[in-house]
């Protein structure tokens, strides 16, 4: 199905607007849906409660599937639901299947269903981008970097002394922790 607004792109978003008693509905492409949603205060209409668990997301997908429209963001004038008939042009996967099993059809589905998936992904992971690993072996962790920078960072020699003291005091857990720190320093 093509977008009812621009008539050019594949419609992947089902848009519904309720003003008073009058409801208007439209199948839109991702671009048009984004533009339409900005008319409602720029809020992304697909953004749910970011703290809910994944099962809640998938359940809300199920709800969308059952009725034509379910108010996703209650208390708002407009709500948007996703067209369950939308298909990935690369692998033929249907969004309705994703709603059932939480899995996509191919690596290109992320591109095909971008408009619907992006808010979902932001809800699961927070509003963040992927961060590259650094270095062949994954690099140093945040705490290791902090430790290396800190001027009061104790030397391996001092730590060894502390280990001996901890062992004498039978604080073996503390000794084990210190030993790990020495190992880290020596790397």
């Amino acid at each position: 199905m093509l977008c009812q607004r621009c008539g050019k792109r594949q419609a992947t978003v089902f848009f519904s607007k309720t003003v008073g008693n009058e409801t208007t509905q439209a199948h839109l492409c991702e671009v048009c849906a984004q533009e339409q949603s900005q008319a409602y205060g720029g809020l992304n209409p697909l953004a749910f409660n970011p703290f809910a668990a994944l099962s809640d997301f998938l359940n809300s997908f199920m709800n969308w599937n059952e009725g034509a429209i379910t108010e996703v963001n209650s208390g708002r004038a407009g709500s948007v639901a996703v067209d369950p008939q939308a298909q990935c042009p690369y692998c033929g996967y249907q969004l309705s299947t994703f709603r059932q099993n939480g899995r996509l059809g191919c690596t290109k589905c992320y591109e095909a269903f971008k408009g619907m998936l992006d808010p979902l992904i932001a809800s699961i992971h927070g509003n963040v981008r992927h961060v590259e690993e650094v270095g062949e072996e994954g690099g140093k962790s945040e705490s290791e970097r902090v430790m290396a920078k800190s001027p009061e960072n104790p030397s391996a020699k001092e730590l060894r002394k502390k280990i001996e003291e901890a062992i004498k005091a039978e604080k073996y857990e503390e000794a084990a922790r210190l030993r790990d720190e020495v190992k880290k320093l020596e790397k």
Partner: protein
Amino acid sequence: MFEELLTSTDDWFLKSGPSCEVVVSSRLRLARNLEGEKFPHHANAVEQRKAVEEVKAAIAGLSDAGNLKFVRLNEISSLDRQLLTEHQVISAEHAASLGERAVAYDPKDGLSLLINEEDHLRLQIFRSGLNLREAFRYLTRLDHALGEKLHYAKDPRLGYLTACPTNLGVALRASVMLHLPALVYTNRAAQVFQGVTQVGLTVRGLQGETTQVASAFFQISNQSSMGKRGVDIVDHVDRTARQLVEVELQTQNAIFQQEGVKLQDRICRALGTLRNAKIITLQEALDGLSALRVGVERKILSGIDLPKLNSLLILIQPAHLAKIAARELNAEQEAMERARILGLYLKPAEAA
């Protein structure tokens, strides 16, 4: 097939690792997919086969490929698949799914390369005790080597593209299996787990994903791996696990000070039951082994060690018992075989 898994003496879980008095094992898993291909659950047999062959060829080119055993899961019996699941070589989902799927594994190294599980390739590594950092360096090296041969699907914004959007980003899950009997005994586990959840980690029961919480064995792992580097995820899980170790040991010290004899009694009775029972369920055996772990760790018991108890956790599972008995077992026969194995392994154990 796979009889060697029943008698091996150098599997990863037979080694003792850091903090092994509380931490049973550490596990890391990376999810990778082939660019432009259908995910395994949506692919047809030909497409699945193609993914298996492509990944298999890449694995064959690894420098340590010689230690890896390659098995096509659709060509072995369901009992053997269950055995591999219990042995932590494959996941329950991998064992149960249909179609062309395979694994390349090395139990000594705790390494499994799962082909066509939920994703085209999952790299999984186990370590005894709390050992995520070393495991991460090892797995990252392996991932880089395979990434040079395979065209991983990756998006600059979303990271590695995975069948389920929950795994995006660096697509890493870092888990630690902990034994927390004192927290359970003092009814503090729920409260402590609430704290673990608040720092963005998940708590699960003994065998991960779907099973119920069994005895005092719990697994903590990261929920999301997007917007973070793997090394920081590992660091976060590792630090949380260390805190749990500390809280558990403190609680143990406190309860042993207050009611030491009562707890010793429980541990020694558990030894008596596990060593002398003739019929025993998996749940009762796990509860008993939980008590024995405390006994060994606090030097109340001698003649057995933690690696041996680790191996019992695996050997008393249904498919292992059927393999040991070399025949199919009904529920009662299985419970009898379990009691026999426990009796055999615990013979040298005694109250110190």
